[in-house]
């Protein structure tokens, strides 16, 4: 006796599920996005057919016993769908729509847009590959990455997507300039411009010369370790130390060199630096 309410409860609860599982519909289990397909119905008379997913919903008046044709470009979004036939009773089937394996869009995220030359794995790119209907193509797809255009050696590699995503890393070129970073899947590609700028100066050397007002200081043209000129505006700091005192002059590079004039103090020590790079020291003896 104690189990009767439980059994009744089970039966009552199961009824809606049982109604939904009858089978007068024949539906393909898998359909490719955007393709035409048909649904077979059985029985006779008029009914209403719904195709329902999160991204597409259709409603058709149908003649039972006749196939229902769904034209191409009607159900375009990948995902799970219900097919519900109502008219007297209700019959339900389910099917999935898979992405078309035809890349149409490559969403390309490249970073950074500007970086120093000569950096190992300094450039990263990630892509998501979509079909003509905006579905993420989850089947493995080859993506060709290429970095070119600065006169340095071209870099390229091919990567397979996992669940629609792929990524790569590239070295920045040894030569400054704008590089093209391209990702290609099938016949579609996307390109980003990566500006490669000289890195830190590789060395700093200055010379000193006496003139009427004091000591004229001038650096050699500043270059990074790959030989690229360091951009104008980079600041060079000249420091003159004498009798426990210190004079500092900050000068931006102009045409690749920095120039400054400091007072001539016999016995002074003059140094130059830019960023983390220290230059040579000059001990000023008097006239040179």
């Amino acid at each position, binding site marked *: 006796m104690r189990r009767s309410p*439980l059994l009744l*409860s*089970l039966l*009552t*609860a*199961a*009824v*809606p*599920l049982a*109604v*939904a599982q009858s089978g007068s519909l024949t539906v393909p289990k*898998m359909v490719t996005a955007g393709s035409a397909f048909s649904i077979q119905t059985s029985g006779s008379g008029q009914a209403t057919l*719904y195709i*329902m*997913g*999160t*991204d*597409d*919903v*259709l*409603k058709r008046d149908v003649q039972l016993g006749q196939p229902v044709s769904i034209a191409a470009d009607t159900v375009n*979004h*990948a*995902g*799970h769908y*219900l097919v*519900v036939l*109502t008219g007297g009773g*209700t019959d*339900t089937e*389910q099917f*999935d729509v*898979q*992405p078309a394996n035809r890349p149409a869009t490559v969403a390309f*995220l*490249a*970073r950074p847009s500007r970086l120093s030359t000569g950096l190992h*794995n300094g450039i*990263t*790119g*990630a892509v*998501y590959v979509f079909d003509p209907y*905006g*579905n*993420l193509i*989850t089947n493995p797809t080859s993506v060709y990455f290429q970095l070119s255009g600065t006169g340095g050696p071209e870099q390229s590699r091919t990567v397979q997507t*996992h*669940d*629609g*995503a792929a*990524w790569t*890393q590239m070295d920045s070129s040894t030569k400054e300039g704008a590089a093209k970073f391209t990702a290609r899947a099938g016949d579609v590609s996307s390109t980003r411009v990566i500006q490669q700028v000289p890195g830190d100066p590789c060395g700093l050397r200055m010379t000193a010369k006496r003139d009427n007002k004091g000591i004229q200081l001038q650096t050699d043209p500043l270059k990074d370790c790959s030989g690229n000129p360091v951009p104008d505006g980079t600041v060079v700091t000249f420091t003159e130390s004498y009798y426990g005192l210190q004079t500092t002059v900050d000068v931006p590079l102009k045409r690749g060199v920095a120039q400054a004039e400091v007072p001539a103090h016999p016995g002074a020590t003059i140094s130059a630096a830019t960023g983390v790079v220290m230059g040579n020291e000059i001990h000023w003896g008097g006239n040179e």
Partner: protein
Amino acid sequence: MRTPVLMLCLLLGAVAGFGDEQPAVDEQPAVRVEPLDLSGPRPLADQTQQAVIRDYLEAWHSLDGALGQNRPDLLNTDFTGSAKDNLTSTIHQQTALGVRARYQDLSHDVRVVFYSPEGLSVQLVDNVEYNVQLIAQEKVLTTQRVHERYVVVLTPSEVRWRVRVFQGEPE
């Protein structure tokens, strides 16, 4: 023996309740988060992972509310880009056809699979179990239990992660 029967009864009762379109069940879905198995060079901090999954699960709640009430405004918090566009379009179609849809997520088995190197997208896959219901003229036409694998891409916005790609495929 009584406990499994009671649990089954409760489960079926819950399904039947959903079938009668009772108010949304307040029970939280069972959520299992798989260990990280990231493709990509960028590590994912625990806090970021938790935020991504929290926001993703909330998106299911928004999905149910929006498609169940035909209110596209309920998508604004949790969806963006093509996912939001597609769902909004569906709501307009549903409204025109006089139908609504309910999505009640029952369980999630979530795994974060990709954190893009620049930090602007996170991809996860989720084996979901959910009930879906089609309602026409306030009558429940069908209730179905679905097992589906979802591939989801989220992107960061001002204060949360939003679903940008939301796509199901067979498990």
